[in-house]
């Protein structure tokens, strides 16, 4: 059963992108374990506002684990110490009375801190703009059932497509690599017949953009997939490698 607990929250505070950051520890009393982690941060912020202090800035929006906005490194894990969820779905029942919880922003050169726990993940958008699409304009497309797609293929594409672009993969990776993110999109579109047409060009364009933006090199540690809130599989990275290498050898 959920109880009320007293906790300490050790939060990274950083006034701006160039400012020197530091940890600040706050005490919170009587926090219900049924509350979500972000609700706990809300309570902390209410407390700070009451004391006329600057509340902790953090990204959050849908609070149901799908928008990919929340981005906290809680006790050494992106999205906290629970599997297959985002920070907004993390609940306080994962913590015990008297615990000190450390909350940090994503730390990766490609995701610079904007303020406190908020980082700039624009790099992911730029990768998508480089090729994360099928080049069709609105209208003039064939009937949806014109091309049958085997169910296992459609399902695998769906699993890859469930990526929410939160950045946990690059944040968890000791190499700061965005391979899982790129692989998920390349995989989804390479699996489907509609996307096969441009599969090679897409893989090359997205990888080139990823490298250009300063993400690291993948060494297959698997930390990304282990921490992915949507359990996107490492197998997608193999497919990306395959697509990319085939494309390069064809050239």
């Amino acid at each position: 059963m959920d109880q009320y607990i007293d906790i300490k929250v050790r939060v990274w505070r950083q006034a701006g992108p160039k400012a020197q950051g530091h940890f600040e520890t706050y005490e919170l009393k009587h926090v219900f374990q049924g509350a979500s982690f972000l609700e706990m941060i809300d309570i902390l912020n209410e407390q700070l506002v009451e004391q006329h202090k600057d509340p902790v800035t953090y990204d959050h929006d849908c609070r149901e684990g799908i928008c990919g906005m929340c981005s906290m490194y809680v006790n050494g894990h992106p999205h906290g110490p629970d599997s297959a969820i985002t920070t907004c779905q993390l609940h306080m029942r994962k913590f015990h009375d008297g615990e000190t919880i450390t909350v940090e922003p994503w730390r990766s050169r490609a995701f610079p801190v904007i303020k406190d726990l908020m980082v700039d993940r624009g790099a992911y958008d730029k990768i998508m703009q480089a090729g994360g699409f099928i080049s069709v304009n609105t209208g003039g497309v064939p009937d949806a059932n014109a091309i049958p797609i085997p169910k296992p293929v459609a399902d695998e594409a769906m699993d890859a497509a469930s990526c929410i672009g939160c950045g946990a993969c690059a944040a968890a990776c000791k190499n700061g690599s965005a391979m899982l993110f790129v692989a998920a999109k390349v995989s989804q579109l390479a699996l489907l017949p509609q996307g096969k047409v441009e599969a090679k060009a897409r893989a090359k364009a997205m990888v080139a953009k990823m490298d250009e933006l300063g993400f690291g090199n993948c060494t297959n540690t698997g930390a990304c997939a282990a921490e992915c809130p949507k359990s996107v599989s490492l197998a997608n990275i193999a497919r990306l490698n395959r697509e990319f290498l085939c494309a390069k050898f064809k050239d």
Partner: protein
Amino acid sequence: MWLKDSSIGRKFIMSLTGMALIFFLLFHGAMNLVVVFSEDAYNAICQFLGANWYALVGTIGLAFLIFVHFSYALYLTFQNRAARGNDRYAVRGKKEGVDWESENMLVLGFCVLGFLLLHLYNFWFKMQLAEITNGATAPEELATNGAYYVKALFTSGGCGIAYCCLYLVWLSALWLHLRHGAWSALHTLGWNNLKWMKRIKVLGVIIATLTVLPFAIVVLYYLGMNIGIY
């Protein structure tokens, strides 16, 4: 050049050179195993791989592979540290399913390299190099008598035991390095999918073990001889 400029290209080089080195080790290990059964046969192989043109080409090729593999490793690590950024996490949690060796490949690589130098001094220096330099580094008449050097190294009392242990430590580091390296190389080449995810990791362990085991058997064989089990 995409093999240098693109991240997957660099990884491709790493896996190709890595796999070539694994092949070399498999061959080397199989050859070593012969010494356990017949010292003469082993010496015949040593003779065959003496200072011949093909053995020399092979040696230079190997040196090149190791050089490429290692310099790419340094380059990748340098880039990856930069990608990580200047601020490190204050707390790093244990990640489910992430093997220690996969995050410490460079450290393991350094261990392997360090021992490799020792190993070169122990054998290559006294054999192939001695032959090339006409005995400048070691007596030339012993240059193709591999069995002699193996015995000399591992069965010389306390010093031999220390060498045996040292080599076993080295082989463990190599095993760990290969346990990640082998499947990772296949993965990087794109030879993996959802179904094979688990199998390929098992395959990695098998490759690593097959590669390291013959060396270990030889060391253990001489260790047994040294401490007088038989």
